[in-house]
């Protein structure tokens, strides 16, 4: 049981690095979808007797439905309609991105030792995984040119936040999970709409086209 959980966490981190290294949008979206599914699994795995099983199921199901199915589907639709396949020339190359991501992972694992968990029964990989995933998401948003990849980065970021949220399911389930899901749903939904508009207006999803507003 414990080793399954370990594996899941490690897989989440590996997927982070994969997304950073992937130049093909389709593969990246699939990776993020897989990550979403893993999160849903983790929600179940981490549930202990103290948890309200109803909430756990809701969270796991919600994550699976939204993170692993709905949003990836939307993203696939987007890249199909806009006919984009790959991220062209990211601002930060793939290898440097991976290295930065690796540094982030190392730092996250080192760093989280200093943050004492108030709930000692929690899994030791949880906090570093969350931080590493958040870091990956931030890196993606900063370093990628395409609006789609930026949204993808935002998704990874949300995944990291979600991992962290798993820590709290024990004592404040409703508020937190509702927050995660609402945020993800609404943000990505609105971003998606804007993305379509951008494509129509600029005939491209390259955000470099959008730098006319400056001093």
């Amino acid at each position, binding site marked *: 049981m414990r080793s399954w959980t370990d594996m899941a966490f490690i897989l989440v981190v590996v997927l982070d690095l994969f997304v950073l290294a992937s130049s093909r949008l389709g593969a990246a979206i699939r990776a993020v979808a897989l990550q979403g599914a893993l999160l849903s699994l983790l929600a179940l795995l981490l549930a202990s007797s103290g948890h309200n099983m109803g909430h756990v199921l809701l969270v796991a199901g919600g994550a699976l439905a939204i993170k692993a199915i709905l949003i990836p589907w939307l993203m696939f639709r987007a890249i199909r309609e806009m006919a984009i396949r790959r991220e062209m020339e990211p601002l930060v190359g793939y290898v440097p991105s991976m290295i930065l991501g690796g540094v982030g992972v190392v730092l996250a694992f080192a760093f989280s030792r200093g*943050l004492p968990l108030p*709930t000692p029964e929690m899994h030791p990989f949880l906090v570093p995984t969350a931080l590493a995933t958040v870091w990956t998401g931030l890196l993606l948003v900063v370093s990628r040119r395409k609006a789609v990849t930026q949204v993808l980065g935002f998704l990874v970021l949300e995944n990291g936040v979600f991992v*962290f949220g798993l820590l709290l399911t024990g004592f404040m389930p409703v508020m937190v999970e509702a*927050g995660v899901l609402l945020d993800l749903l609404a943000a990505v939904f609105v971003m998606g709409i804007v993305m379509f508009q951008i494509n129509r207006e600029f005939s491209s999803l390259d955000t470099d086209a959008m730098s006319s507003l400056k001093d």
Partner: protein
Amino acid sequence: MILLIILVSFVLGASAFAWPDNRTRPRLLLVGAAIHLAGVVSLWIHPEGPVLSGYLFLDAAGKVVLSTSSVLFVASAIYAQGYLRRRDDRDNRIFVGGLLVLLSAMTTVGVAQHLGVLWVAVELTTLATAPLIYFNHNARSLEAAWKYLLVSSLGIALALLGTFFLALSGAGPGGPKSLLLDDLIRAGPELSRPWVRTAFVFLLVGYGTKMGLAPLHSWKPDAYGEAPGLLGALMAGGITNFAFLSVVRVFQVTRAAGEGAFASDALLALGLLSMALAAVFMAGQRDFKRMLAYSSVEHMGILAVALGLGGTAVGGAFYHVVNNGLSKGVLFLAAGNIHRAYGSKRTDEVRGAIRRLPVSGPLFLAGFLAVTGTPPFSPFWSEFIILNGAFSTGRWVVGAFFLLFLAVIFIGMGATVLHVVQGDDRGTPARPGFGDGWLTAGPPLVLLLLVLALGLWLPRALQGLFAAAAHLVTGA
């Protein structure tokens, strides 16, 4: 009553999407604004206790921000009547609905006593605003909306993480295991300090992005520059103030947990950096709406500095929230009028606004004087209190930089404003039919008169309110 206000605005917003007639739809704004104002007034007269098991409660700090925004929203709603009538060509379904949802979300921020609820409401304001920025449906406004959405969402995500950290800090044995402000503050020292500190950093960056503190401000000039004037007014005078309120909430907890010194330093640093950045970016600024955005950065910086200084400055901060909200309303609404009358917001194309717009032009000038802390307008008082807070606690360097930045900003902003209002308007682009009307020039005028009245005479009730709000933060 609190719930009623939130729900009515939300329902009105929802019904705006269903309202069939483009011409009569803006009146919903008037209805919403009036009900909101009436609600706020009734809360002044009959204060209401906590509702929804303490999740919502209008305390002094929230009251300051909420009342300001309510007034500002009324002004904006009246202004919107004139504005949307002139923009008859455009479907205003999303605009009207979005504004009302925004009002509902802002109100929720004002009354939220639970950090989770607070976060959800702040998120809602972001989502409600993004489509509004895109009101003009052109490439520039789209770019602005995208930048706003992306940067704000980033901030919001970090704030969510910070909220989790804060929740975790109280999750230990004997911890409050709650995100209710009162619980957290009461638990105070029992919270896990490293987590609180980390949480504060994430929440400061998150809500600071929403506030537009430098260097998290980057979305601001773009968004304010492209948004319609009245949205700019609501953002600069409303949403950012609520974001400040969120930072105040976080600060309350952090301080109670014994991390106040660190939090103060961080706030001072970001605040002064914001003022410095405004001082640099306003010099030679050629776009007067972007200039207003930097002014907003500056004033958020002032608020952050005031909060960081603590002591008497915090009372000044709440006073400044009111002053900033109202005078930003004056400036953005007047700037919107000027923008439309010339069809341009570049200073190389706009001059002689006093001639072309005999009300909005002088209002823009007066608003500039007000917002830079010139008597007889009220920001003078709040800025003096904050400065006084710096000097009375022996923070000479902070006080000196504060004054230096104010001076540079005054020069930078004044040069642009005077360029716009003075001179001969012949030979500049003209848009006939966009002169001053009662509906568009009246609201900023009334706001200015309010700023003036507050500068001459601050009602005792408000003074007491600022003191009570400051008491919440400083505990003294």
